[in-house]
């Protein structure tokens, strides 16, 4: 049966989308920002809906003493591309050799890496939200500036919405294809 191999190839190809589209987006909404401020997180850079987005986010953040988001200071943006490339290549290797354990190894390790990635993302958010400059012009007693990992949260006058973006959805799809492939591969051997 060829289906698991096709699916794992597809899963690998889908990962290429991470080099094209952002994985995650954080949108800040407030009345005086009718279009919202939408920050895009890629595997290798931080951008936004407009070229000035990162600067605009940093301008907002500096009032409360949040650290300046500078892509150069985030090492993950350097680690992630080779990891993704690794999973693209190994997806093909899995497909070529077509061994059950390989399917399992690819899938489980990818889910593990993804979980670590999300936890790491949470840590960054925690750090930005809590390590505030004591000289910040505005201080809000008891307010938390940590954006949500996923979902919606009110942060002073802003509503922050954190959701996967196109790349993130393709990553999810890739994992699902990997799951189906692994399931079919396992079922076939059993049968």
């Amino acid at each position, binding site marked *: 049966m060829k289906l698991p191999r096709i699916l794992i190839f597809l899963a690998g190809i889908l990962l290429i989308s991470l080099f094209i589209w952002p994985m995650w987006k954080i949108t800040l909404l407030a009345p005086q920002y009718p279009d919202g401020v939408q920050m895009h997180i890629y595997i290798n850079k931080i951008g936004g809906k407009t*070229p*000035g987005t990162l*600067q605009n986010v940093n*301008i907002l953040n500096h009032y409360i003493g949040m650290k300046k988001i500078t892509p150069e200071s985030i090492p993950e943006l350097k680690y992630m591309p080779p990891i993704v490339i690794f999973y693209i290549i190994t997806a093909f290797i899995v497909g070529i050799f077509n061994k059950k354990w390989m399917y399992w190894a690819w899938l489980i390790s990818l889910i593990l890496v993804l979980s670590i990635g999300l936890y790491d993302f949470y840590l960054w958010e925690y750090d930005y939200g809590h390590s505030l400059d004591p000289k910040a012009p505005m201080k809000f007693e008891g307010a938390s500036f940590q954006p949500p990992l996923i979902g919606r949260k009110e942060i002073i006058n802003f509503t922050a919405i954190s959701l996967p973006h196109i790349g993130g959805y393709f990553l999810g799809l890739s994992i699902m294809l990997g799951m189906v492939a692994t399931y079919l591969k396992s079922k076939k051997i059993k049968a």
Partner: protein
Amino acid sequence: MKKQLYYFTAALAIIFTIAIFANSCNTSRTANTGALDNDAASAVYVAPGEYDEYYGFFSGGFSGQVSVYGLPSGRLLKVIPVFSQDAEKGYGYNEETKPMLNTTFGFIPWDDAHHPELSQTNGETDGRWLFINGNNTPRIARLDLTTFETAEIIEIPNSGGNHSSPFTTENTEYVVAGTRFSVPYPQKDVAIDSYKENFKGMLSFIKVNDEGHMEIAFQVLLPAFDYDLAHSGKGKSHGWTFFTTYNTEEKHTLLEVNASQNDKDFIAAINWKKAEEYIAQGKYKEIPAEHYSNRYDEKSHIATSTLQKTVKVLTPEDCPGLVYFLPTPKSPHGVDVDPSGEYIIGNGKLSADLTVHSFTKMLAAIENKDFETTIASVPVLKYDKVVSGVVTKPGLGPLHTEFDNDGNAYTTFFISSEIVKWKLGTWEVLDRIPAYYSVGHLMIPGGDSKKPDGKYMVALNKITKDRYLPTGPEMNHSAQLYDISGDKMKLLLDFPTIGEPHYAQGILASKITSKSKKFYPLEENEHPHRALGEKDTKVVRDGSEVHIYMTSIRSHFAPDNIEGIKVGDKVFIHLTNLEQDFDVPHGFAIQGARTAELLVMPGQTETMYWEPQREGVVPFYCTDFCSALHQEMQGYIRVSPAGSSTELKWSMGEPDEEL
């Protein structure tokens, strides 16, 4: 006797009471709402946060500017500085825009703006540019409708009073300029009463290229009439431009009487396609005629002023078939061409009737040489061979006509203060409605193009009187908005305007909104004194000239402490706004600077010139409330005595803080 006295007293009391009552009635004001419909309010109501359907570009008249209104709400959206310095925006005050107001007479801080005209493609408004003429020191400006800023101003030589302008051709091949006041040609010191001998009237055709840049293609030398208004042909009459004339009597004094004697003056019809042929054949004289062309560059954010030395002049003697005169009663003001291009309406302002010429008949009359006479080599066509029809006694003092898309024309009557709707072809009057008061131009969006949008009409009035709350002797001119979608015109709204709204143009907002710029990308900034980040900020001294490269971003300037400036220095403060977000300008003002503020858009660089006069420490600050810490957006410059040895230094933040 006693009884009689009683009656007499009672009668007196009654008369007295009636007199007081009657008097109080006479002096109480009854508002003239012109039978306002109940639904008028909802027709002009644009809910908060909603947009108007149309942009209206109104001439600022003697303010020299253009004001932009939303229609139908009558909301003022922006005032765009064009021919006058504008302290609010620093236009004509900052170093970058001063060259925009340069002329062969030097820097002129004002003009009298008259007729806005939108650019057209295939006879339809296209939303690229808006042109407007300066009447006093003849000029034409082009406004860029992606930025709503003045992008270019060209001076028109050999002209005095650029009134019949700019009136584009159907693909914006040309905008035109006609001299309202004839002047000696070439300009020289002569006796005024040598008018007939020495004075000439010059019509100019200004080529507009694909980037919108203007240059004078040619001028046409004509008799010393007053060339009042113009409109270019469209459709079948594309290739021709029509100018009205008055003072064909060629008088130079007491014109109100002396220039009103002839029963008929002329509409001058210029065949500009023929002119192009004559230019190609070299049948022109290239004469010295210095004039300035001033262009603002959106990348460098700097205007440059270039002196042009000559113009090409065509004369009717050398160029037969270039110009014809169409006799038109009496001192016609506006000349308006209907959407089909067939009818040429001469609004004879001292005539009881409205004269409509036929373009087809005009061509036939030219073909058959139906000439009444010839004036200065210009054939005068026979009146009855070119007239298509006459609207008889429609009102008093016709000035201007615009059109809807159903074959109707709308003419303003200054003296009878009304707008009259009439039918093209049958010449019957269909409806009339008062204007408050003494209407000049009118505007229907696209109403002078091939595709009018016959939904709204605006009356642009000369007199305001009691329309609004009194504001002392001077009041803003009034405008009224009418619904013209039905058989009957309906008054919807009355609103004040800025300066004098001679003419206006309207356009569907959707033709402009998607192209409207939100900010200038920093990476495209080519200003020679830009600072693209705080690390680029510096202060450079060259003798007594000091250049400060400063940046602004919410909510600080960099640098914000500067020392080593001396009394008598010539200081140039180049401020780059580092913001890259919509609607975040920063202002800049410094105490004692004898100029206006800077108002710098995101991504832009602007320069203030300052000569410090006194020793001390002077504050500067951001003038446009930009952010929660706007009040903190300030700094100091230390001014030391001339010749002092104070070291030049600049900083922002404490030494341990990161820039």
